[in-house]
């Protein structure tokens, strides 16, 4: 450091040099929701720059897709967004089924929808619970895990696994629901509605939580579209877009026409439109909408086959297709290219967390470090999907 040769006071003040501190959040950090590193430049408590570094959880899913057979790839799909594995299975299966042009039995569609929506609830429970944990509220996280345990027990009964299911397969689902499963799902729905009110009262409208999340990380609608965001990230900014209603797949067109569910949007109730509170609000309200969808399916389900006739060694007709579904985190897209063989030519996974995370680089400068944690929590990323 240069020696100070200042003589007057003014010269001394100009001579004092301060430096922004470079702080490293992660890869091991309680608040980065996985193995991710964010290099932050901070002037005291104010963040002046943020740079996410990814790739710590990169497991070459796309390369593997080009080396294993179509049916063998299914367990890999579970593992990118491991908190919403049913939806991942669904996305991949739909893409391949589009290329094959087969019809899925109705009972399979019903069970798929029930499982996808239950998984959506589970994923939002974690998203909201860990968000509370990041903000400092330890207890709601454990209460939400109580309901998530029940959901995982339901999935264990139907397919044997708690987290990575590989249950929704190309052509339908792997096996039929065991007897009594559907009535237990109905009981879950009944109990969940009371518990949901508990979470809202304990965390959602808690004054400290609102103060920590309102007016933080405001994403304007134009910014949301420019960054290609999807899911609660855009709905929190007031954009009325949900793939289940606007580009329906499976039974959602029918369910929407029956008026069974609605799309919650952020309204800027507690602060600017598109702030962290709005996104958390959208996720909490979506849990109730998923319950309504599950109830509709429980009312309309009828016995029948649960899987179409798929050969063990599948050869998918040549072509390419893109299918995007509404993952709890946003639009999960699968782009599959086939040359008619046993193995895919290209199996591209468009993970919503990857695209949603890019906006963090833009949102963080100018906020406090505590807000940085709130912003990352509100993007609801799963690093498995960010890195694939």
């Amino acid at each position, binding site marked *: 450091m240069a020696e100070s040769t200042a003589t007057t006071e003014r010269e001394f003040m100009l001579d004092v040099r301060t430096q922004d*501190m470079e*702080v*490293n959040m992660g890869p091991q*950090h*309680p*608040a980065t929701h996985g193995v991710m590193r964010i290099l932050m430049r901070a002037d005291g*408590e104010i963040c002046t720059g943020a740079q996410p570094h990814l790739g710590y959880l990169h497991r070459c899913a796309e390369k593997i897709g080009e080396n294993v057979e179509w049916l063998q790839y299914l367990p890999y799909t579970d593992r990118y967004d491991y908190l919403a594995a049913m939806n991942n299975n669904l996305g991949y299966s739909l893409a391949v089924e589009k290329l094959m042009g087969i019809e899925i039995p109705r009972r399979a569609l019903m069970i798929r929808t029930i499982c996808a929506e239950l998984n959506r609830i589970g994923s939002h429970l974690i998203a909201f619970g860990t968000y*509370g*944990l*990041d*903000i*400092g*509220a*330890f*207890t709601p996280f*454990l*209460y939400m895990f*109580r309901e998530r345990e029940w959901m995982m027990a339901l999935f264990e009964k139907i397919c044997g696994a708690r987290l990575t299911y590989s249950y929704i397969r190309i052509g339908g689902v792997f096996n039929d629901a065991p007897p009594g499963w559907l009535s237990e799902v109905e009981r879950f729905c009944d109990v969940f509605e009371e518990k949901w009110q508990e979470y809202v009262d*304990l*965390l959602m409208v*808690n004054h*400290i*939580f609102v*103060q*920590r999340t309102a007016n933080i990380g405001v994403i304007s609608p134009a910014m949301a579209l420019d960054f290609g965001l999807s899911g609660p990230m855009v709905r929190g900014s007031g954009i009325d877009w949900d793939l289940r209603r606007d580009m329906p797949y499976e039974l959602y067109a029918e369910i929407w026409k029956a008026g069974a569910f609605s799309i919650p949007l952020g309204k800027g109730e507690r602060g600017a439109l598109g702030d962290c509170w709005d996104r958390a609000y959208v996720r909490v309200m979506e849990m109730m909408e998923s319950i309504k969808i599950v109830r509709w399916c429980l009312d309309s389900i009828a016995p029948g086959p649960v899987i179409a006739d798929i050969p063990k060694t599948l050869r998918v007709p040549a072509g390419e297709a893109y299918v995007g579904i509404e993952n709890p985190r946003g639009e999960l897209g699968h782009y599959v290219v086939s040359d008619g063989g046993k193995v895919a030519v290209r199996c591209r996974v468009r993970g919503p967390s990857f695209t949603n995370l890019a906006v963090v680089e833009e949102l963080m400068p100018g906020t*406090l*470090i*505590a*807000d940085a*944690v709130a912003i990352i929590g509100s993007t609801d990323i799963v690093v498995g999907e960010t890195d694939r």
Partner: protein
Amino acid sequence: MFTEVLSAAPQSGTNAINDFLAGVKPEFVPAWAVPLTAVGIAVGITIALVSVIAMFSTWLERKVSGHIQCRYGPMRAGWHGWLQPLADGVKLLLKEDLVPVGADRVMYVVAPAIVLASVLAALAAYPLAPGFFFADLDLGIFFILAMTSTTTIGVVMAGWSSNSKWSLYGAMREAAQVVAYEIPLGISLLVPIMVAGSFNLLEVSRGQAGMFGMDWYIWPWVNPFMLPCFVLFFIAILAETKRAPFDLPEAESELVAGFMTEYSGIRWSFFFMEEYAAMYLYSVVGAFFFFGGFESPLTWGAAKVFGDGHVLYHCAAGLTLILKGFAGVFLMMWLRWTLPRVRIDQVMTLGYKYLTPLALACVLGGSLWEVFVAPILPWRNG
């Protein structure tokens, strides 16, 4: 010989330690060893007290948090886990004692000691029972507040010397927070001090005897500004002890463990002993100034049945104080597991812009009440 030396120090009221030492007449002990023995006994008792308080508090915290979160907490180490703190203590003692590379060795080692020493020193001003105290200070509460404030020095030293940016953040936040909340803490205690007319803890407690031991200062007919003062005091002690919702200095989800990140083993346990001991001590201050101190129906009953000097009376009084202290600790734990964390700039805003003016307003109102209204109230005179 003993009595000469001991009676030279200013005393008021009986003191069990002095009585005990006076009763023992070992001619073979030289004169200079006498005060040292007294001090040694006192220090031993304080260290034992702090350890027991910390151990019990860790168990209480884990059980309280467990039950709030719909789970049991420790259940295996002893009946309902009461031996768990012992197991934790043994584990911490056996851990590797390390100093991070690049850390300032001297400050790193000294910081936890300073933090614990300030709390131990504050304990010297506490009476454990009406007849069992280490020193009957006329400056009681002033001394306690001063000593508990010096823990900040240790925390900042810990954060700086750890050679880690996250620890530094924790230390800076802690320093800012504690300094900000010292003001409402001290000011809110002025109203009960005015009513009591003394800083001395024993006198404050004695002033609340009456009405079967329930004539506490918190009741609105004593001074209606007591209740707002207590609320301010409670919020201030939450911030002073770095408990949620003001636990930013150790914000687990942001700074890993704040200023304690680089500490492990017995050094880390010093910080935690200080935290729980400070929680208890501040609670007891609140108990003295707002909730009667030693006075309760139990104490009144023991005085009636056994008489003022009987050892069971002192036990009842001591037990009352312990229960009140731990009620405050329980309330602090309850709040920790319910409320989220407040951001540092919001903490500062709350402290400087809202609590300090409110505290000043309460003092103004309280003192006006004392001067003009209290003399005409029949239950305040005599």
